[in-house]
């Protein structure tokens, strides 16, 4: 499954020219392949070396080099004062990191998966997100909470939930969902530099995927703006809005749809809060049809919010009801066949796009 995705990505990248940004510069067009893991690691290295207030805290981030090796090499380079291995207490180390941020340091808190962040969610919401407001601007919390989010492969119900909608509901937080290496680097650097608390939702299955990255992305000053989505693929018949791993699936679906004469526009949301309403609405006003894709539970999800904002702002432009693709409304089962059925697949996205284009019987 992963192998197919990777192969498709390489094929696609060799055919298409990268978007406008890199064309304007005179960098070499031979883009370097970089995995998302390397992207995150390099971003952490650069931000830690640029600002001595940045430090890492979490379980296994130091000597173990990170549970998923994202923090590899950082303990050796920056020492135990700046890379803290903690006892097993999410509530504890999150609280401590928030306290350090209150005082003026810039912690990057790693959750082994965001499922474990639930044990610390009071500190994320009540101590971090709300503090600037409750203290009338006196207490700013320049903290980043990062870690893998959403389904992996065969890890069951308590290790597979996606928390994008939960955190994005809370004012005071910023929620980012990188997809490829460029996103990973640019958004993590932006998150660390941001004075507000940021929830940075990665994806375990994307860590090992490599993507071509231009020299501009590899530069240490590279940074992406928070709150801007990216049009990964321009199209005119239907808009597919997705985040994280589902962007890759949507791009694959777009290839399949192209053969059937449907030109899909794929939006990589990149930022769930703030949600880039204007990019989404501009796209829907162009294509008149919308499919949202997420692997999270359907109720009260990101797709519901996107649908609401499109209905509010671009109702007259919709030619079809909004199609919402999400994970099954069940705790994630373990058995491989059941897990596959509980998550959106490329075929689901293709069928939804066709329904939105009135090309198939519902």
């Amino acid at each position, binding site marked *: 499954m992963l192998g197919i995705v990777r192969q498709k990505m390489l094929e696609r990248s060799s055919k298409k020219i990268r978007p406008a940004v890199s064309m304007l510069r005179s960098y070499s067009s031979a883009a370097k392949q970089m995995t998302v893991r390397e992207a995150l690691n390099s971003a952490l290295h650069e931000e830690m070396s640029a600002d001595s207030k940045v430090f890492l805290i979490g379980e296994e981030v130091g*000597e173990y080099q990170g549970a998923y090796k994202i923090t590899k090499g950082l303990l050796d380079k920056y*020492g*135990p*004062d700046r890379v*803290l*291995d*903690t*006892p097993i*207490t999410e*509530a*504890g*180390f*999150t*609280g*401590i*990191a*928030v*306290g*350090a*941020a*209150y*005082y*003026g*340091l810039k*912690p990057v808190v790693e959750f082994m998966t965001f499922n474990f962040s639930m044990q610390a969610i*009071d*500190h994320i919401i*009540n*101590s971090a997100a709300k*503090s*600037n*407001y*409750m*203290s*009338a*601007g*006196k*207490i*700013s919390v320049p903290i980043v909470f990062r870690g893998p989010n959403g389904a992996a492969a065969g890890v069951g119900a308590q290790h597979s939930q996606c928390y994008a909608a939960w955190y994005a509901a809370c*004012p*005071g937080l*910023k929620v980012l969902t990188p997809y490829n290496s460029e996103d990973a680097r640019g958004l993590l650097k932006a998150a660390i530099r*941001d*004075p*507000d608390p940021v929830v940075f939702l990665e994806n375990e299955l994307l860590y090992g995927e490599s993507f071509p990255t231009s020299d501009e992305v590899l530069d240490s000053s590279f940074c992406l*703006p928070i*709150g801007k989505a990216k049009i990964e693929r321009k199209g005119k018949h239907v808009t597919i809005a997705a985040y994280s791993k589902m962007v890759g699936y949507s791009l694959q679906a777009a290839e399949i749809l192209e053969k059937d004469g449907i030109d899909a526009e794929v939006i990589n949301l990149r930022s769930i809060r*703030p949600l880039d*309403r*204007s990019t989404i609405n501009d796209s829907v006003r162009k294509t008149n049809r919308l499919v949202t894709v997420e692997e999270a539970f359907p109720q009260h999800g990101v797709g519901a919010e996107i649908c609401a904002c499109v209905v509010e702002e671009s109702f007259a432009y919709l030619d079809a009801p909004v199609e919402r693709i999400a994970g099954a409304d069940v705790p994630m089962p373990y058995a491989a066949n059941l897990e596959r059925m509980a998550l959106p697949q490329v075929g689901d996205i293709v069928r939804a796009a066709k329904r939105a284009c009135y090309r198939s019987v519902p």
Partner: protein
Amino acid sequence: MAFCSRNSRNIIIINLLKSKVGSSRLMKLSRVCCYGTCLNSTNHCRFLPSTTTLPQLGNPDPNSHKKGHSPCSQRFQSTKSGQQFASLPNGEHSQVLDFPGGNVVFSPEMQFLSESPNVYNPCYRVLDDNGQLISNSVFVQVSEEIAVKMYSNMATLQILDTIFYEAQRQGRISFYVTTIGEEAINIASAAALTSDDVVFPQYREPGVLLWRGFTLQEFANQCFGNKADNGKGRQMPAHYGSNKHNYFTISSTIATQIPHAVGAAYSLKMDKKDACAVTYFGDGGTSEGDFHAALNFAAVTESPVIFICRNNGWAISTPTSDQFRSDGIAVRGQAYGVRSIRVDGNDALAMYSAVHTAREMAVNEHRPILIEAVTYRVGHHSTSDDSTKYRSADEIEWWRMARDPVTRFRKWIETNGWWGSEAESQLRSSIRNQLLQAIQIAERAEKPPVKDLFRDVYNNIPSHLREQEKLVRETINKHPKDYPADVPVDVAVKDDGVSVYDVDVIVHDDDLIIHVR
């Protein structure tokens, strides 16, 4: 009951031969060693001479922390496999095994640590119930100036609480939390700290802010949530906060401030500041997971933080007997490797001395200290509570009158000739008048403007909130009778930038950042 002291040099084993399960006889000596079961079949217990030195638990090099190594580098050493049998300095082997979790001395006796002590953890006090110095007491001397200031603040706090409580009862403010009975903890601890020490309060410590210079008017402004409130009317009454007084804004969630304080202390250590973090919480707060994680962490990271627990006997209606079964809070410090002391919280002089000493230890030795201040919550939990429903009014009255910490301290300063009845009545009437006036001013003041609803959610106000603010302002202007008359609807101020439809211009730290939408 036995415990291990992390840096203990002298280790003595308890005489276990005659003991049965659950009842060990403690030697009078202060340091004891914990022990495990013996792997071999020898039937006698090992007695070590009192001068025996065992290597520190989990750390083969007892002096590494003094060599200037980073405290966390000890971890590198502990993961290396040690020799199977640690040798004792007198050359004897066996009965001590070098586990990664620590050196353990074995015993063929099956001995459970008792759940309750034979001797309760003693409580440090210096003044007796009549405010007279106990003979042979050890304390930190306080000058007349400081002592009088402490007393004035304690009396002020008492009057402040009484008046604001009455104001709530009259419906002038929505809510209030009193500190009656705990004035000594508040003021004496504040007096023993420096203004650089960062304070993370729970909500029953306004006295610390009072000591540091927060004015009566500022207290009133926060409670009335008016325009002059430095909290911009965002919080419930009594949720004070002040950057310039190093007092972190109160958050209602219980015990969350405890790990925050440890994080801040860690930051102070990294900055090499001559300051510590101080956090306050009640007996109930020690049940929260945050308390345990924070103490553990503070010990592991060797952070300069003082934990002050106000053990006042009640967590709303839950008495301490329903809250925990340990001998109070201070003994828990030992379990986490944190030095601790139990103090009479109603004895201002003892509190001052303990906090003063604790601060020196915290800052100079980079260690956490836990102080359990035993006291009594004379007032109700808050204005939403009527404590006569779960405790007798007689009990409350007795503590209010006979065990009042303010009276007790007054007797001491009077004995020293530093205070008299004229000074007393002058102070009380002056404070009362000032407070009543402050309340009148606060009550009549304008409420915060509409723009304060939308600011500070993020560092820079996002465009959607700016739009909402514009819409709210337009709606208020169109339908003024639907809105309260005392809400200022002034035009958006330029400090946050001006929104033009296609471009967001944001002024951030003197840099002009233009985002094109």
